């Protein structure tokens, strides 16, 4: 096993080293020490091409889009519209009309809860989420349930941080009207069997109709953590909605996508009112623009969407298989090394895991340890990671989380391990 690991590492070493140079921030120092950035699950760093795309837009073709007849507006509109096609291809949606630009995953989920939920959820209905959701995939549904007098059901998980699929099947009932599940847990790293979950839902659609014929239960996936790590194919998954953020996949902050199946989107009422989303307005009656514009009121985040497009290009230019293997390797390496330290407990030990490692140190407060690592120039995240129910499930107040992307190295992990050992000496 060890020889195999080394050989993969050697294989990708040069490739990784070259890619790392794409990210100017990584050559920076923190407190006069080489910066080690392990907070990638919170936000990824940006390659120079993405940074340049932002500057280029503002210095060369900044204009409001879609209604300007002039040169700059046409140029900006073209660039903006191209990104929708890039996003479509990135997740293999059927048409670019299934892509809605949002501020990020959180807004994407809120849009669905607000628009689909308000129209289709009523008193007594049930919405299913999982025990490892980010607050962003809990609170919008809770708000909807409160408003509609509906009930939120939660798929439980085991001690490894894996969803209990049998229990999920038991939760499905004729009352189930919507399901929203996280693709990769941000605090545990678990890659959920979302395809299987969707297949189960589809298979049961006849029996859940209770003699009324087939019922259709939409399934939404929170893809905030997954989009960056491996190719997502929404047609293959057969999900109804997929939400993801630009900033976690090398794009700018403040921009993200919502994918929705076209027929569902077309049947949904608008989310917000304003410019762009209308077809015609009079004081008596307003008619709405078609999908996706119906859901994009107001001047969009043009610059960031365009730079998001560059992030799509950047990811697509990578050898994604190689990168996934390398990131997995980093996760495995960090896991193995942490396990060797006395008093370390890993939180989230699922068989299928992304490159996120969460742990606690016996007798050492997570915040204190995180701050100690910071003094060494190592950026980790501590706390509940916006997943308080997960912390409650494991009966802890928070974890130390290191999350890796392909620009990280084993040497950096060694530095963190050394840091953890020192922190224990100092703090325990």
């Amino acid at each position, binding site marked *: 096993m060890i020889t195999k690991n080394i050989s993969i590492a050697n294989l990708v070493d040069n490739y990784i080293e070259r890619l790392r140079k794409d990210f100017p921030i990584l050559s920076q120092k923190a*407190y*006069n020490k080489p910066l080690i950035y392990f907070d990638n699950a919170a936000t990824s760093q940006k390659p120079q091409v993405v940074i340049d795309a932002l500057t280029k837009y503002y210095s060369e073709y900044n204009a409001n889009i879609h209604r300007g007849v002039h040169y700059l507006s046409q140029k900006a509109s073209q660039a903006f519209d191209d990104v929708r096609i890039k996003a479509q291809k990135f997740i293999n949606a059927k048409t670019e009309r299934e892509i809605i630009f949002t501020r990020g995953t959180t807004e994407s989920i809120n849009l669905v809860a607000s628009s689909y939920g308000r129209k289709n959820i009523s008193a007594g209905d049930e919405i299913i989420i999982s025990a490892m959701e980010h607050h962003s995939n809990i609170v919008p549904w809770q708000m909807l349930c409160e408003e509609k007098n509906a009930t939120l059901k939660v798929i439980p998980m085991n001690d490894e941080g894996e969803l209990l699929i049998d229990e999920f099947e038991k939760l499905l009932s004729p009352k189930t009207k919507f399901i929203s599940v996280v693709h990769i847990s941000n605090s545990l790293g678990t890659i959920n069997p979302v395809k299987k979950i969707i297949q189960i839902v589809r298979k049961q659609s006849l029996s859940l109709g209770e003699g009324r014929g087939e019922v259709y239960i939409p399934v939404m996936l929170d893809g905030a953590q997954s989009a960056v790590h491996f190719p997502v194919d929404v047609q293959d998954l057969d999900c109804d909605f997929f939400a993801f953020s630009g900033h976690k996949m090398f794009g700018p902050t403040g921009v993200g996508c919502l994918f929705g199946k076209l027929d569902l989107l077309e049947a949904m009422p608008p989310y917000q009112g304003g410019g762009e989303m209308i077809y015609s307005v009079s004081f008596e009656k307003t008619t709405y623009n078609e999908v996706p514009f119906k859901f994009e009121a107001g001047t969009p985040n043009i610059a960031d969407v365009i730079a998001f497009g560059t992030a799509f290009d950047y990811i697509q230019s990578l050898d994604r298989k190689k990168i996934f293997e390398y990131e997995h390797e980093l996760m495995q390496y960090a896991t193995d090394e942490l396990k060797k330290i006395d008093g370390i407990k890993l939180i989230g030990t699922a068989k299928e895991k992304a490159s996120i490692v969460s742990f606690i140190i016996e007798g050492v*407060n*997570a*915040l*204190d340890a995180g*701050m*100690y690592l*910071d*003094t*060494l120039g190592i950026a980790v995240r*501590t*706390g*509940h990671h916006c997943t308080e129910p997960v912390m409650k499930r494991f009966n802890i*107040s*928070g974890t130390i989380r290191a999350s890796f992307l392909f620009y990280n190295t084993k040497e950096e992990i060694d530095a963190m391990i050394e840091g953890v050992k020192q922190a224990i000496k*100092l*703090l325990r």
Partner: protein
Amino acid sequence: MKTITAIEKEITDEFEIFDEWTEKYQYIIELGQKLPALAEKFKIEENKIKGCQSSVWLNSYEKNGNIYFEADSDSTFVKGEIALLIRVLSGQNPDDIVKTNLKFINDIGLRQHIAVTRANGLSQMIKQMKLYALAYQNS
């Protein structure tokens, strides 16, 4: 009793010898480790200040017109911060506590490390200390 400003000046001077964040961190941890634990009977919900990542229990009492604080936390770093706050504010007159803007936090370069994280509820703690002072002032 020295004035708040005088104690703040002392602390700022002490921190001058540290060039690096890591040295300041270690010093604050040391202060935290030395801070006497708060009696269990005071570690109750009413005394709890919930930060995003750590909890603080703050108890106060009045003696001869001055206010005394004692506190504890699950984080040693936060305990270190508490030790500094107690050194500055405990035993002071309520008027002075209410009025002070605690310049030393900025001067020793601590603000940048705590402001960004909302992590340890230091500002909540100061607010609570001032609220106690205000309450004693009005009683």
